[in-house]
């Protein structure tokens, strides 16, 4: 099995058949259903989807930090030789912040206001008893400098409210990278920032990923950001991975009707003449109901009768690409659809 071995070597983290339910007063919400995708080593992977598609839930599931009313219904998350879904709390704690780290969405609320950055960073390094406090501080100062904070040796003793939004997010990145994690998760890292900051943060992440040889997962609904930053993309819709693969392949030749519709809605590609924002008609389905067939069928322009009754297969194409649609395989295979690539190449918006 040389191929499997290669796959294992290339893959840092492997999500397989992950399903998560939420218990709510309205009943069980099937928030994630049968999620499968690999995260390849030294790549930047984007998870993209509308709000409510479950992209953040995936991220918290990887960390074992789902909300209390969440229940993992099945699947596994392979990370090295461990399964993070079934790891003990102690094992998870050793992984979090040390091997897998997070950059949070809103730096204004995700950093504790009453502790200095120095204190917070020292706390993150608590698992290293052999390193002296002054050495830890030196590491923290160095990391703050690396993310572009001027006068890091002075700023380290300041509190979050002394920092501007962009600076806070830089500090957030510094905290996340402090331990030299193998995997960096970024949860909508630029949503809370203005546009100029956004570009800076994206370039910073790109540079640091190269410099530190890290693997990065970026969760975002911003297609421009994904196109500019990522190597691989995972497209999510209503709790399912609908398509995944190389960023250029997907942006140039999306396989799934939803991905194509999503790309058409990207404000960055809309021509100024019509001045009309295209939308995908319909709403995200109610996930408390029992689901049959393709999750996207009610909104899909290419929906066929089979789409409402049978769950489409995950169609693999090459090493990493996959898409979940009846058009791609089996009796409803449509070769014209597959080769069609009506969309112009993505223009990065950052």
């Amino acid at each position, binding site marked *: 099995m040389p191929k499997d071995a290669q796959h294992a070597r290339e893959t840092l983290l492997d999500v397989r058949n992950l399903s998560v339910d939420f218990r709510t007063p309205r009943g069980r919400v099937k928030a994630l259903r049968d999620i499968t995708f690999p995260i390849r080593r030294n790549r930047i992977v984007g998870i993209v989807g509308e709000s409510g598609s479950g992209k953040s839930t995936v991220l918290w599931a990887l*960390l074992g*930090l789902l909300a209390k009313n969440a229940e993992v219904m099945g699947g596994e998350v392979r990370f090295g030789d461990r399964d993070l879904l079934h790891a003990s709390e102690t094992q*998870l*704690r*050793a*992984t*979090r*912040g*040390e091997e897998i*780290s*997070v950059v*949070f969405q*809103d730096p204004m*609320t*995700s*950093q*504790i*206001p*009453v*502790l*200095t950055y120095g204190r917070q960073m020292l*706390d*993150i390094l*608590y*698992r290293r008893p052999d390193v002296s406090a002054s050495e830890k501080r030196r590491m923290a100062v160095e990391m703050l400098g690396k993310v572009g904070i001027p006068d890091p040796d002075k700023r380290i003793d300041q*509190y979050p*409210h002394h920092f501007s939004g962009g600076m806070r997010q830089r500090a957030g990145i510094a*905290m996340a990278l402090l331990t030299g994690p193998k995997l960096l998760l970024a949860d909508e890292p630029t949503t809370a920032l203005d546009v100029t900051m956004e570009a800076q943060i994206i370039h910073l992440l790109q540079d640091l990923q190269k410099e530190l040889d890290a693997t990065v997962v970026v969760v975002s609904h911003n297609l421009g950001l994904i196109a500019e930053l990522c190597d691989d993309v995972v497209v999510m819709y209503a709790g399912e991975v609908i398509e995944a693969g190389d960023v250029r392949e997907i942006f140039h030749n999306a396989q799934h009707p939803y991905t194509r519709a999503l790309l058409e809605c990207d404000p960055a590609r809309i021509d100024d003449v019509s001045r009309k924002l295209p939308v995908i008609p319909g709403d995200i389905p109610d996930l408390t109901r029992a689901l049959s067939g393709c999750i996207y069928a009610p909104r899909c322009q290419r929906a066929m009768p089979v789409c409402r009754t049978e769950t489409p297969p995950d169609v693999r194409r090459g090493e990493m690409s996959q898409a979940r649609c009846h058009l791609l395989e089996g009796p409803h295979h449509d070769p014209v659809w597959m080769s069609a690539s009506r969309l112009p190449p993505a223009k990065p918006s950052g």
Partner: protein
Amino acid sequence: MLYYLAKRLGLSTVVVCLVVLVLFSLLYFIPGDPATIALGPRATEEAIARYAEKMHLDEPVWRQFLIYIGNALTGDLGLDVFSDRPVTAIIMERIGFTLALVGAGMGWAMLLGIPLGCLAAVKPNSWIDRITGVLSVGTIAVPSFLVSIWALLIFAVHLRWLPAIGAGEPGQLGDQLSHLVLPAFAIGLSWVGYLARMVRASMLEVMGENYIRSARAFGLHPRRVVFGYALRVAILPTITLIGMGFGGMISSTVFAEIIFARPGIGKLIFDSVMARNFPIVQGAVLVATGLYILVVLFSDILIAWFDPRVRESL
């Protein structure tokens, strides 16, 4: 910071002055000779004359007030009507007993109430949360002076585990501590529930904050997350509450001192009221007020110390 402290101190001074003013004016609202009222019917002619002179009763009220304030600032609170000893000296003898009692009562209440509130917040709806909830309502509703009386009845009179009255032999720490147990228990009990409930409420709020999730995501130990992060923020409203509720603490201390015959400030005020020894009442009330203001001030400073945002906005 300095400006803030000055403002608070200025405000506190105003409050103290108001209290003294109220005490003074009460003396004049009541018909009759102020000296006789102040000293009571049992006072001798001589004492009345001396008091009139000492208090400058021939002067206008506002001057008397200023003179009293001026003297008080130099530590002179007048003379005891009966023994002629300086009021300041008498108060200094007694204040230690009160401070020890307040400290012990508040101390055990905090040591028990704050962790209970944290535990209840970390595991909402668990058995510890339910017990804490019932305990809180129960202890808050029970009047502290009744706790004193019943504690005296059960542990001192009936079971004879602990001494009933007094503050213990001077110089014998063990004896003094054993005399401290019951009153401290009585005044702290309702605070256990009060604190547990307050800490629980604000912890529940803070535990839902994004930065707590961040701390977890960085793999910090749960103990560090709860006590180093969440409690550090959640303690702020609790400190304000302790400062605000300190007046109630003084009230229950007065009761505890009377019931357990503990020679503190509260007992001193009560005895002086009964004996109509007005200079002592006045002085002791002033000191009690000052104590209360100091605690409120201290709680403000503590908040500033805990919260950099407050510290810098000062």
